[in-house]
């Protein structure tokens, strides 16, 4: 059992969805990024997805692009993100997964990255531009360092692919809710629910739904078919809109706390 497995079995045991916020490392600045991660952990989220900013994030919409650009202009990079999380490791209890495009870890060295992740207690890694077909080398590096390799399925994935990806994912299966890039959207369409139910019927592994999740109502709609939700663009948008970074952190934490407290994610 990995730490991510524990997260999902605990949430399942408590009859609720696991809540997974996404934050861009180094955004809006290094200090407030650290405060945000710490704060999210303190208000009781289950797992935090920390994005390592990349210059060309093709799976991301305008909000994550903007947060990544700001983080990059602050000098954030793969080494900085590892350091940021390692600095926090004594202060936070919830597990962290990294989200990074492939080139930064390819350049850093797959083994070196996996070893560093393990050393600083990272639970898993999501690489959005590394489909199963290309993941062989990375999977070897990651698994020999007890890192969960989290794969994605999308509404365009065939049933055959969904099965294969579900078999190979560790920790949870990242369910991309729509045909498109990251970004807050309203509601959850019938076709999205159908897709998630199809994925549900094909795997027993925990399913977390991301892309387009922005409010408690959507989370409510996912009860009963998913095991977790990932919310990113909505949170980063709040930070972008807030004139002072400290205020932005507080506002994000307020929203997340509301979602958790309203118990809307309980079954």
């Amino acid at each position, binding site marked *: 059992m990995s730490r991510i497995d524990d997260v999902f079995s605990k949430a399942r045991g408590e009859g609720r969805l696991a809540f997974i916020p996404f934050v861009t490392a180094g955004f809006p600045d290094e200090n407030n990024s650290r405060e945000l991660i710490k704060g999210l952990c303190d208000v009781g989220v289950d797992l935090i997805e920390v994005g390592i900013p990349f210059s060309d994030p093709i799976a991301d919409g305008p909000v994550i692009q903007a947060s990544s*650009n700001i983080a990059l202009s602050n000098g954030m990079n793969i080494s900085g993100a590892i350091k940021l999380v390692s600095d926090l490791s004594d202060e936070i209890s919830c597990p962290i997964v990294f989200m990074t495009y492939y*080139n930064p870890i390819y350049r850093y060295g797959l083994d070196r990255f996996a070893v560093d992740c393990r050393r600083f207690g990272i639970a898993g890694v999501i690489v959005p*531009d590394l489909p199963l077909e290309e993941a062989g080398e990375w999977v070897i590096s990651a698994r020999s360092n007890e890192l969960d390799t989290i794969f994605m399925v999308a509404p365009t994935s065939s049933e055959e692919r969904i099965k294969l990806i579900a078999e190979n994912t560790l920790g949870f299966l990242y369910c991309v809710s729509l045909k498109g890039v990251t970004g807050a959207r309203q509601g959850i369409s019938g076709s999205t629910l159908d897709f998630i139910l199809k994925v549900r019927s094909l795997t027993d592994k925990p399913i977390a739904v991301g892309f387009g999740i922005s409010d408690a109502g959507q989370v409510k709609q996912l009860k009963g078919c998913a095991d977790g939700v990932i919310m990113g663009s909505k949170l980063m948008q709040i930070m972008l809109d807030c004139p002072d970074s400290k205020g932005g952190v507080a506002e994000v934490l307020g929203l997340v706390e509301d979602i958790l407290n309203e118990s809307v994610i309980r079954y």
Partner: protein
Amino acid sequence: MDAKKGRFGIFGGQYVPETLMGALIELEENYELFKDDESFKSDLNYYLREYAGRPTPLYLAQRLTGHYGAKAIYLKREDLCHTGSHKINNTLGQALLAKRMGKSRLIAETGAGQHGVATATAAAMLGLKCAIYMGSRDIERQSLNVYRMKLLGSDVIEVKSGSMTLKDAINEAMRDWVKNIDDTHYVIGSVVGPHPYPVMVRDFQSIIGHETRDQILEKEGRLPDFILACVGGGSNSIGIFHAFLDSEVKLVGVEAGGFGLETEKHGASLERGGPGVLHGSLSFVLQDEFGQIREAHSVSAGLDYPGVGPEHAYLKEYGRVGYFSVTDEEALNAFNLLSRYEGILPALESSHALAYLEKMGELIEGKIVAVCLSGRGDKDVGVVSQFLGEEIKAI
């Protein structure tokens, strides 16, 4: 050379979000199905001949030959293709394929605007909707092509992210494709991107080399000593090189040296980049020590790209092709030289290949050289006039 599916040695692959995998698999299956299909081939050949104007001439540039003391310098006149560059070879192929796949909309990225114009043209001729992504900086320096695309009925979508050039236009086109995968085909304009694009675009462009081979054998009774072509993403160069890979001909790819390789303001991915993943394939890319993609620079918008096709990376590693670079200034000098010596305004991209003639020194004496003149330079006169410090006005 495609030992493993979509790989050239270690280079190539399909590094894309899962959302795109379905579309790439569909595209690959259809391309495999149609590329040897007689009716598809005859359709494509019909349009290449009757619409694009192929075969293009292999022109003996006599004054240029005399100037350099060569035996013969030939220009493969892709600039005479309909729309003014080799890009139409590929867009006709992909647009016909898209139509057979039942897609009703084309999207494309463009740097210099040549690929955008060629895609918009094919879309208009085949009755397909079309949207072209173009960086703000390129829109500024290639305003004529922007207007051409609009006249052809395409939407031109300005890309303001990142370096606001070709690389960012590709990012944005990929994001569009992810959203509109059901009815849209993404016409990538160079031998870059995830498999099957590098193979498919190469196949559509390899007609340049096949014609050149036949033409030079007819004119000279033998193959040339050198073939020169510019390399941005690398489609015209792969196109002309491919028919000669199994020969003794020396193949030279010329990258954008920008302000000089020592300045970091250049587009020489093969000479100054390292292995990395950009836009769906593993190849040579300009990047920093943390794997962030660096901005490229070139006076020529079509070469202003921090990556290069994976097959070029392989041909470099394998040692079959020599890759060099020339600076902005050297390319502009070559632009002027060809204009005055041969009455041909070359595209600034193609001017890079021409500029390498100057660098060959004694090597060129008594030799037969073929240069891929990939496009015409009408689109570049504004940039050239700025460089010369002259204002364009009626005299």
